[in-house]
Every structure is written in structure tokens, then in C-alpha cells.
């Protein structure tokens, strides 16, 4: 049992664990203290002073997010003095803020706006000079420093959690901006576009780069066939935007909402996740066979479905790109097939098809601009919407999401197995791959309770498991007795740790799954912002519930995938697959020194 401390907040006697801050103690006891820069478990900086409270015996007001409780402390969160001080702090921030809420995408979900409302600010008393105003638009993220409140949450996330270090305070005093070195654009540095900074920004200073306008335009164009697909993790994210229980899958409502938005075909990226397993599983077996039979093969093979991770590794470990699976990410595969396989079925020119991917991700907005993501002269995917953007469109269209009836995705790219659902959570791609690979090789089901590979389930940073193949089918003789060592990580700090091992030839891994965001796509840069730590756990539970609720649990049993192979692709890693479903990578380097210099200026 932890030591308990007795304190009084607003006259209420409270006993809390030693080591907690005042704001934590208050929250646990349902006492609200305003705050702006503080973000539990991520950022504790004490910069905004919005959380000031009065502590008896102390001369000055105290920042409750910084000060730990002490035995006998008597705290007033609501005294006139504390309220006045907080209000003035907020007014000062507002005096250096554009205050154009009416035309701001954050309006309604903005922490500063909420704060001003809570603190009872009704007029702009202070008029101040406005500080530095930089608008930095990249394919994935838009940075508008005029809205920045200098809370530095993004700095903590980018440096301390992702360990990339793109964003840091530059200059000093009134000229301070949060950004890359020497006024460089985020597109000219080693930003992964993971968007973790976007998910913590309390205001509209960091936001996804808009795709809503081009999508509306395509929908309104009578000559376009507009096809939408949604990633696995979207179904456990979007409900929260409409007041539904956090983490609960709303797959059926989502499909209905997309129909009501007048998309022509409602497909599921899950379909391509199943396909990815077929391609990636085969690629792994091919590499393993080569390695075990004295041939040349680069192992460990590392998953490639997270474009934030891909950009990171291209910058940080440009010499190790041969480890990456050549599989495109699932939505790119699906896009490529929509504009070939499906276009042929419909008898439509691929140029008249507009593919929209709804993703929990900002990096995928950049991914679709990569020159290699083009087949037959048309891009695989035309626009990527984040979950937040889709929610905005649903609201704009006046759709009452919470009360929608359920419906299904469309054939032939809407059916999926539970293995596809778990792509949305760390450990999921590996588990899905093992479900299929183990069964292909041995003819038996993966020997784990409910098919969950327990050691790689959960939110820990690096997870490792071993799996031995015994009594294999004759075609896989080379694997008899082979123990595959797999590792799973999410978040770029863990990715860096594993890659340092891989670069040195250490670890002894054969197969590694990496997702760029800590926790995987359930916590992606395009998801509704997480109000507290529990959100991740709830979304993870939602994903596993989807998986377990399906009869179809393994990718290779998906009938529509089987049809795709028999009618069109013929075999995994075959000629057509290579052309449509696989890709190459680009050496970038920490300072983009491997790229051609024409972009650098």
C-alpha cells in the first residue's frame, strides 16, 4: 500500500497517495481545476499557470499540476484570488491569439476556447501585439504558429515519446516559436508525419492538412466514381466524436454514414489487410526458406504498413531499408486494386475513379503523394481523411451518427476476417500473420487461446515471442523444428531501439512488426484526440471484441480474397501482385542528405 497523505481541498477532507500532484488529487475527487499545458502522463511543464490554486500558508499561488500534495495541505481551488489570476492568465494568452474561432477548424473541440468559456471570459480586455506568424503546410500536417499557445506538449511528444525531435522552441521571449530548426518547414526535416504532436495540440496550431474540400468536390462531380475505404482502427475511434462510448466499435453505423455521404462504393481497408497477410506471409516464408536453405535473404523482415514508421526509418536508418517488407500499406493495396481489378469489373476508366481513404493517420496523407504509389498513370489513392475530418463531414452533412441504423460494406472489397481488425492495434499484424503462416505451414491452427499470441498483446513498448514449427506439411520441410523469433513495437522510440539492434546484427529476430504510433493505429495521429490514458485501452478492447465477434478469424479463409487470387492476381507475390501491391523505399537521411538537392531549397 502506498503512503497516504491527508489534505483539504475546498473544505473537503481528502486522503490521497503520496507523490500525487494537487491537480491529480483534485481530479480523483471530482474537483475540476482548469489547466492548459498539462497533459497527464505526457507533459508536465508548468508554463501556462492556468491551473493556479491557493495553498494556505504559501505566499504565492501555486501551479497545481507541478506541486505535490503534502500532509495537512489546505487548498482552495476556487478562491476569488485564484479565479482572478487564472482569468488574467487566460486573457493574456487570448490577447496574442487570432480569436477567429468562427472560421477555425478547432472551434468546438478547442481547449483554449473551452477554457475561456469555463473561466467566464466574455470580452477581449487586453489588446496586444501579435507574435510570430508562420504557416507551414506539408502534405500531412499544417502548422500555424499564430494559434500556438506555447504549451510545448508537442515538444514533449516529439522529443520524449517519439524521440524524433523535430519540434523544439526556437528564439526567445516574444519571438519564441515552436518548430523545426532555423525556420525550416516540417517537410524539409526528418519529420515522420506520425501526427502524435497533432493529437496533443490543444488548439489549431498543429492540424492535419485539409482533405475535406477535395473530397466534397469529388462527391459532387457527377463524372467521378467516388470509392471510400476505412481502416480497421477507424471503427473504434469515430464513435467518441458523437458521444458514443469510447472505444466501442461502430462499424455498421460507419458504413451507413458513408452511404449517406453519397460515396458510390463503401469498401473496407480490412479487406486489403487480409490481402497484406497473404502477401507479407508469403514474402516471409520466401525469405525464411532462402535463409534456411543456404540462400541469400535479409532477415529480420519488418512490416511496412505504417507510413510514419516508413518515413522514420528512411530518415534514421537509410542503410537498413532491405529489411522492410515490400508490401504497400493495406489502403494503398486496396486503392491500387480499386483502380485495376474493380475498375475492370465495372468497365470504368481508372481515371474516373476517386479513391478516398479514411485513416486514423496523418502520415498516410503524405504516403499517397509518394511517386511510387502510382499505377498505370493514376495515383492509387486520391485523398486521405483523418477520423476527425470524417466526423466533421458527417456533421456538416447533418447526419445523426449516433442514431444511424447499421449496414454492411459493399462487395467485392468489403469482407474481412478478424485478423484484419487487429491490424489496428500493436501486435495485431504479427498475430494475423502468424495465424495464417502457422496454419499454412503445419495445417493446424495457431496454438494460442482464442488465437491471441499472448506475449505480443498489450501496450508495452517492445514485446517478443517465439514460435516453433513442428510436424510441418511436406511443402515446408525446410521449416521443421525452426523457431521463429518475433518482436513487436509501437512508437518510434521502440522502433529506434529495435533498429539499433538490427543494424548491429543483434537480437536474433526473424520477423518484426513496427507501428509508428505508441499503441498502434488505435492511437494514431488522425484519431479523435485522447482525453486520458484509458482511451487507448478501451479502443484496444474494442478491436479485440470485433475480432472475436467474427466467425472468420484468419485472412486466408476470406472468400473474397480467394476469389481475387483465382480471378485476378493468380498467386501471392505473383506478377500482378508485384506490379500493384509491392513498392520500393527511398533513402532520405537525418537531414535529407540522400535526397536530390532540388527539393532542399
Amino acid at each position: 500500500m502506498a503512503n497516504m497523505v491527508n489534505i483539504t481541498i475546498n473544505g473537503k477532507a481528502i486522503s490521497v497517495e503520496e507523490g500525487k500532484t494537487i491537480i491529480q488529487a483534485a481530479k480523483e475527487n471530482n474537483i475540476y481545476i482548469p489547466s492548459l499545458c498539462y497533459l497527464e502522463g505526457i507533459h508536465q511543464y508548468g508554463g501556462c499557470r492556468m491551473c493556479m490554486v491557493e495553498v494556505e500558508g504559501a505566499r504565492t499561488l501555486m501551479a497545481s499540476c507541478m506541486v505535490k500534495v503534502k500532509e495537512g495541505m489546505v487548498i482552495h481551488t476556487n478562491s476569488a484570488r485564484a479565479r482572478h489570476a487564472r482569468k488574467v492568465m487566460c486573457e493574456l494568452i487570448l490577447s496574442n491569439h487570432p480569436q477567429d474561432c468562427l472560421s477555425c477548424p478547432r472551434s468546438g473541440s478547442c481547449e483554449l476556447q473551452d477554457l475561456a468559456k469555463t473561466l467566464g471570459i466574455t470580452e477581449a480586455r487586453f489588446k496586444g501585439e501579435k507574435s510570430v506568424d508562420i504557416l507551414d503546410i506539408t502534405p500531412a500536417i499544417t502548422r500555424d504558429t499564430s494559434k500556438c499557445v506555447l504549451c510545448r506538449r508537442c515538444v514533449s511528444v516529439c522529443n520524449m515519446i517519439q524521440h524524433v525531435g523535430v519540434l523544439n522552441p526556437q528564439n526567445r521571449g516574444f519571438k519564441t516559436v515552436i518548430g523545426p530548426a532555423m525556420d525550416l518547414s516540417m517537410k524539409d526535416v526528418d519529420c515522420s508525419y506520425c501526427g502524435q504532436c497533432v493529437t496533443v495540440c490543444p488548439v489549431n496550431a498543429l492540424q492535419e492538412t485539409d482533405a475535406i474540400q477535395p473530397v466534397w468536390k469529388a462527391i459532387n462531380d457527377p463524372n467521378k466514381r467516388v470509392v471510400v475505404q476505412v481502416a480497421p482502427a477507424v471503427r473504434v475511434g469515430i464513435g467518441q466524436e458523437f458521444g458514443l462510448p469510447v472505444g466501442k466499435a461502430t462499424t455498421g453505423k460507419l458504413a451507413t454514414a458513408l452511404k449517406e455521404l453519397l460515396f458510390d462504393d463503401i469498401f473496407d481497408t480490412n479487406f486489403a489487410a487480409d490481402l497484406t497477410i497473404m502477401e507479407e506471409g508469403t514474402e516471409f516464408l520466401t525469405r525464411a526458406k532462402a535463409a534456411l536453405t543456404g540462400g541469400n535473404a535479409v532477415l529480420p523482415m519488418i512490416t511496412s504498413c505504417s507510413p510514419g514508421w516508413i518515413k522514420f526509418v528512411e530518415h534514421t536508418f537509410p542503410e537498413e531499408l532491405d529489411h522492410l517488407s515490400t508490401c504497400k500499406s493495406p489502403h494503398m493495396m486496396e486503392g491500387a486494386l480499386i483502380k485495376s481489378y474493380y475498375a475492370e469489373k465495372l468497365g470504368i476508366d481508372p481515371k474516373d475513379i476517386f479513391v478516398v481513404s479514411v485513416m486514423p493517420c496523418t502520415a498516410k496523407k503524405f504516403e499517397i503523394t509518394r511517386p511510387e504509389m502510382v499505377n498505370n498513370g493514376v495515383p492509387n489513392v486520391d485523398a486521405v481523411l483523418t477520423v476527425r475530418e470524417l466526423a466533421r463531414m458527417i456533421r456538416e452533412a447533418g447526419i445523426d451518427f449516433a442514431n444511424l441504423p447499421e449496414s454492411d460494406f459493399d462487395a467485392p472489397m468489403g469482407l474481412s476476417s478478424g485478423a484484419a481488425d487487429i491490424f489496428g492495434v500493436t501486435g495485431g499484424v504479427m498475430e494475423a500473420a502468424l495465424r495464417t503462416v502457422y496454419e499454412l505451414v503445419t495445417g493446424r491452427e495457431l496454438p494460442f487461446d482464442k488465437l491471441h499470441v499472448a506475449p505480443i498483446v498489450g501496450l508495452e513498448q517492445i514485446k517478443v515471442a517465439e514460435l516453433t514449427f513442428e510436424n510441418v506439411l511436406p511443402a515446408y520441410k525446410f521449416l521443421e523444428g525452426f523457431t521463429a523469433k518475433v518482436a513487436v513495437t509501437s512508437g518510434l522510440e521502440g522502433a529506434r531501439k529495435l533498429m539499433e539492434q538490427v543494424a548491429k546484427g543483434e537480437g536474433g529476430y526473424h520477423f518484426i512488426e513496427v507501428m509508428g504510433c505508441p499503441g498502434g493505429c488505435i492511437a494514431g495521429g488522425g484519431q479523435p484526440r485522447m482525453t486520458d490514458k484509458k482511451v487507448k485501452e478501451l479502443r484496444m478492447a474494442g478491436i479485440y471484441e470485433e475480432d472475436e465477434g467474427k466467425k472468420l478469424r484468419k485472412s486466408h479463409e476470406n472468400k473474397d480474397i480467394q476469389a481475387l487470387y483465382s480471378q485476378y492476381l493468380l498467386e501471392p507475390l505473383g506478377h500482378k501482385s508485384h506490379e500493384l501491391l509491392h513498392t520500393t523505399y527511398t533513402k532520405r537521411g537525418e537531414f535529407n542528405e540522400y535526397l536530390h538537392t532540388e527539393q532542399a531549397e
Partner: protein
Amino acid sequence: MSEETKKAPVREVYDEAEEERQKMAAIAEVIDTYKDQPGSLIKVLHAAQNIYGYLPLSLQKVIAEGMNMPLSMISGVVSFYAFFSTTPKADNTIKVCMGTACYVRGGQKIMDRLQEILGIKPGELTEDRKFSIEVTRCLGACGLAPVIMINDDVHQQVNPDKLEKLLAKY
């Protein structure tokens, strides 16, 4: 063509490259000494600026790599402290007072004449890096306006026609 004229320009280029190499080697040594000492970045930046004269982006990248720190963190520190500079510093900095008194008594004329003589604008430096011009607010010597400062020397009641002579002293 004589041997001499053929070689001369080549040698000059060689020297410049050699000088750059020596500076970079010295900086690499500094980085090597400090890279495992926490909190030593400022020392490294100081030393690098002393060796190189200023801290351009290319040099900040070298330091970032050597110290194993993000570039944005290096540039954050460089831009925080006024004594670090990302542009080359002139040997002599001329500050022209544009405070009210100096302005009224011919500050602008001095500024115009300086720009004419040196061929640069405020904030720039001459090609030989000998002079740069800056504008400053009141220097507190209004009684003897117009005033300019060259490095630490205050020159009062400056006559624009005598500027050339004054500069020749530096």
C-alpha cells in the same frame, strides 16, 4: 605561360579548402571531448563559433550529429542566446543611432553615406567581412548627436563627409 601563373590561383583555392578542413577538424575534436558530458552543448557551441566565426545551419547539423541531439534542439539553443550568430560576423560592427535626437540632427544622412561607401544595407556585411551596419535606438548621448558606434567606440557629432576617413582607421 610561366609555371607561376599557372599555379597561383589553384593554390589559393586549395588554401581555402584546407582552412575549412582544419576548422572542421578542430570542431570535431571539441565535439569528441564533450559529446558524453551532459549539459555541455553551450560549451561546444561557443567553441565552434570561436573556431568558425558563426554557426550556420550546415555546422549546426555537424554538431547535432556529433552530439547525438536533434537539430531543432541545437538551433533552439543557438537562437535563444544573443551571443550566437548564424550569419558571419563582421570584424567591425557599425551602429548608427536613429533615436529622435540623432535622427533630427542628420542620422539618416550618415546612414545613407555609410551605405554608399560600403555598398551594403543595414543588417548586411561587406564582402571582405570587414564592416557591417546596424541601426540602433538612442545611445544616451543625445547632447552630442548624431552619434555612431564602431565596435565599442562612440563617435559623436559625426560629419557625413568625414566618414571615409573615420572608417579608414579600422
